[in-house]
C-alpha cells in the first residue's frame, strides 16, 4: 500500500455558461433554440461560454496529514472538495483516493425534520456512509458527544433549536470511521462550547493518523488544525507548503488582504438596506494598515458603514474577536447603545483600539456586526471572520520580554501587563 492518501493529477472542472447551462432550463427553450439554429454544432457553442471552476490541479497528500485549503470565494475550493467526494465529476484529469472516504459538506446532511433525534442519527449516519451496525455501536457516544438530553431523543428534530440540530448533526459526522475526511466550512456553526469540543475531536482525528482535507475561511482555525496548506486562486493551486507561510502569502497577496476589506460594489455589500458595510480594516496607532503587529503595539480596528435612512435609535456596531482555536476573546461595542439620539443618513466610521500588552501573540480573527433597534433587535450585518491580524512577540520589540529569562512561547489568550508587588516579609 502506498503512503499517499490523495493524489490529484491535472484535475479540471468546466461549466458551460449561458442558456445551455440554465439549471432550471425549460424544455421549450431548448427546443426553440434548436429550431432557431438547427445546424449549430455543440462544439461551436462551447468556446466562449466555458468557465473553468477548476483548472489543472495536481497535488499529493500523504497519509495522516491534515491539509487546509484556503482562498477567496470562487477560488475553486468547494469545487475541488465536491470532485474529491464524488458529488460531481471532473471534466479533466484524475484523482486517486486511498482508503474509505467521508466528506462533510454540511452539518446534518440527510436530516428529516419530521423524524425524531434517534431516527435522524441513523438516517444521517447512513447517508454519510455508515453501516447500520456501526451507527448502533456508536449511538451512545454520539448522543453523549452532542450533549443533547436523551429525553429529547424521541422528539421530532423540527422542534429542536437550530443549535441542537447542528450539535446532533456534527456528533454523527464526528463518529465516521473513515481514513480520509473532507470537511467544508462546517465548523463555523454552533455555539462556542460545542465548537471547542469539535475542534478537540478534530485534533483527535488528526492525531489518530487519518488524513484530513479542510476547507475554511477561518484562517485561525486552519492554522490550528492543519500543518500544511494549499492556497487556491482562480481555480488553480497557487501555493502550498507549511500553513503559516501559505496564510502569510494569502494575506500579503495583491488583491487579498485580510487586514482590510472593501465592498465597493453596492450589490454585494453586507447589510439589510437600512445600514450597509462599506469597508473594514485594521491599522496601527499611526494609521498604517497592516497585518502584523508587535505585542507591545496598540491595534486599531475600524469599520465604515452607510446609514441609508433616518434612524430614531442609534445603531450599534460591534466587533467579535476570536483566537486561532475559534474561542471568543471578547465582543466589544460602543457604550452608548440604545441611545435615543439616532442617526441621520450618511457615512460613519467606527474605530476601537485594542491596547498593546493586552492580547497574547497569535493569529486573531475579527467579525464585524451592526445591530439596529427600531423594532426589537435586528442585525443589519454580521460578517464573521472578516479581518485577520497577527500579533508577534519579537524579543527585540519587547524590552520586558528581554528582561525575562524565559525564551519560549508564553501561553494564554491575553498577556496583560499587570502591576506586581514583591516585598520581603517583615520578620
Amino acid at each position, binding site marked *: *500500500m502506498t503512503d499517499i492518501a490523495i493524489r490529484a493529477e491535472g484535475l479540471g472542472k468546466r*461549466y458551460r455558461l449561458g442558456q445551455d*447551462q440554465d*439549471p*432550471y*432550463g*425549460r*424544455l*421549450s427553450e*431548448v427546443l426553440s433554440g434548436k429550431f432557431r439554429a438547427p445546424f449549430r454544432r455543440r462544439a461551436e457553442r462551447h468556446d466562449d461560454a466555458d468557465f473553468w471552476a477548476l483548472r489543472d490541479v495536481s497535488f499529493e497528500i500523504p497519509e495522516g496529514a491534515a491539509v487546509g485549503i484556503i482562498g477567496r470565494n470562487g477560488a475553486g475550493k468547494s469545487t475541488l472538495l*465536491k*470532485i*474529491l*467526494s*464524488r*458529488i*460531481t*465529476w*471532473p*471534466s*479533466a*484529469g*484524475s*484523482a*486517486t*483516493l*486511498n*482508503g*474509505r*472516504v467521508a*466528506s462533510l*459538506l*454540511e452539518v446534518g*446532511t*440527510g436530516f*428529516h425534520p*419530521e*423524524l425524531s433525534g434517534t*431516527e435522524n442519527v*441513523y*438516517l444521517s449516519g*447512513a*447517508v*454519510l*456512509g*455508515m*453501516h*447500520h451496525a456501526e451507527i448502533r455501536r456508536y449511538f451512545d457516544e454520539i448522543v453523549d458527544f452532542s450533549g443533547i438530553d436523551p429525553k429529547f431523543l424521541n422528539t421530532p428534530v423540527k422542534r429542536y433549536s437550530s443549535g441542537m440540530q447542528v450539535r446532533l448533526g456534527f456528533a454523527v459526522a464526528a463518529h465516521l*470511521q473513515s*481514513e480520509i475526511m473532507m470537511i467544508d466550512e462546517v465548523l463555523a456553526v454552533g455555539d462556542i462550547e460545542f465548537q471547542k469540543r469539535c475542534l478537540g475531536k478534530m485534533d483527535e482525528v488528526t492525531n*489518530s*493518523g*487519518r488524513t484530513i482535507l479542510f476547507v475554511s475561511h477561518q484562517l485561525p482555525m486552519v492554522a490550528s488544525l492543519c500543518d500544511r496548506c494549499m492556497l487556491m486562486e482562480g481555480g488553480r493551486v497557487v501555493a502550498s507548503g507549511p500553513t503559516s507561510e501559505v496564510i502569510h502569502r494569502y494575506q500579503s497577496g495583491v488583491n487579498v488582504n485580510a487586514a482590510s476589506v472593501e465592498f465597493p460594489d453596492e450589490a454585494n455589500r453586507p447589510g439589510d438596506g437600512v445600514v450597509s458595510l462599506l469597508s473594514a480594516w485594521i491599522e496601527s496607532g499611526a494609521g498604517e494598515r497592516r497585518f502584523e503587529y508587535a505585542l507591545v503595539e496598540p491595534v486599531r480596528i475600524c469599520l465604515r458603514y452607510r446609514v441609508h435612512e433616518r434612524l430614531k435609535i442609534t445603531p450599534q456596531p460591534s466587533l467579535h474577536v476570536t483566537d486561532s482555536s475559534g474561542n471568543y476573546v471578547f465582543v466589544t461595542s460602543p457604550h452608548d447603545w440604545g441611545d435615543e439620539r439616532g442617526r441621520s443618513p450618511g457615512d460613519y466610521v467606527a474605530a476601537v483600539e485594542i491596547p498593546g500588552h493586552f492580547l497574547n501573540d497569535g493569529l486573531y480573527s475579527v467579525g464585524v456586526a451592526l445591530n439596529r433597534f427600531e423594532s426589537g433587535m435586528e442585525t443589519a450585518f454580521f460578517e464573521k471572520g472578516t479581518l485577520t491580524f497577527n500579533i508577534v512577540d519579537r524579543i527585540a520589540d519587547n524590552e520586558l520580554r528581554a528582561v525575562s529569562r524565559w525564551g519560549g512561547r508564553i501561553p494564554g489568550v491575553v498577556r496583560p501587563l499587570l502591576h506586581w508587588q514583591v516585598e520581603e516579609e517583615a520578620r
Partner: protein
Amino acid sequence: MNTPSGELIVIRPSRGWIGLGALEMWKYRDLGYFLVWRDLKVRYKQTAFGAAWAVLQPVALMLVFSAFLGQIEGIGASAIPYPLFALSGLVPWTLFAQSLSGASNSLVNSQNLISKVYFPRLLLPLSAVASYVVDFLIASVVLVIAMLLFGRVPPATFLWVPILGLFTVVVALAVGLWLAAINVRYRDVKYAIPFLIQLWLFASPVAYSSGLVPETLRVLFSVNPMTGVIEGFRWAALGGPFPDTTIVVSAAATLAILVGGLAYFRRVERTFADTI
C-alpha cells in the same frame, strides 16, 4: 487508527456508458433501507387517518367508478361484479401511479442530498418506489375483504399477486428513471406527471375491460405495460383466461423502457449535482 480498508477510489472524467454500479449499491444497501424507512415514516406522519390513506384512494375511486361507469352495459366483465372488477384494476393502478410519481420526483426532492454527499443515485428512485409496496400490500388485503363480501374466495392464482405487484413496480421504475433524470434538468416534468398519470389511467383497462378495444388497436394497446399488469392482476385475483400475449408484449415493452432508462440515468447521473 482503524485497519486500512484497502479501498481505492479512482475519479476521472468519463463520457461513455458506465455499468450499473450494482456492487456500489450493495455497499450502500443500509442507506437504501433507511431511505425506504424514512419515506414510510414520514408519509403518514401528522395525518389523522395514517395508513388508512393507502386504502382510501383505490376504494374511493372504485365507488365513483361503480356509481357512474359501472352502469354502462358491457364495460366490465360479465362474470364479475363491477365493483370487484374496478377494484382489482385500481389496486395495481394505485401502486403504479404513486410509485411513478414518487420515483420521478425522488431526485428533485432530495436536492440537498445530491449536492452534498456521494451515494449511488439510483438508490433514490429505487427506494421511492419500494416504499409504496407497503401501501399495496394493505390495499391487497382490502381487495380480499371485498371479494369475501361478494362471496368469492380468493383462488389459488391469488399467489401470483405479489409477483404482479413486483411487475407493477418495475414498470413504474422503468418510466420513473427516465422522468426522474429529465426532471433534474427540466422541471416541466414535475407539472407533466399528474397529467401523464391521468392520461395513462384512461389508456389502461382499469375502469373498462380490454375487450372493448378494437382488434386493430390491440397490439398498440398492449405495448402499454400497464395493460399486461392489470389484466394479469385480474386473472390472478378473479380468474378467467390467462392473458398470455398481452403479458408478453407488455413485459417486452417494460424491459425495453427499463434498460433504456437505466442507461440514460447512469449516463446523466454525473451531472445531477451540477444541474439540479
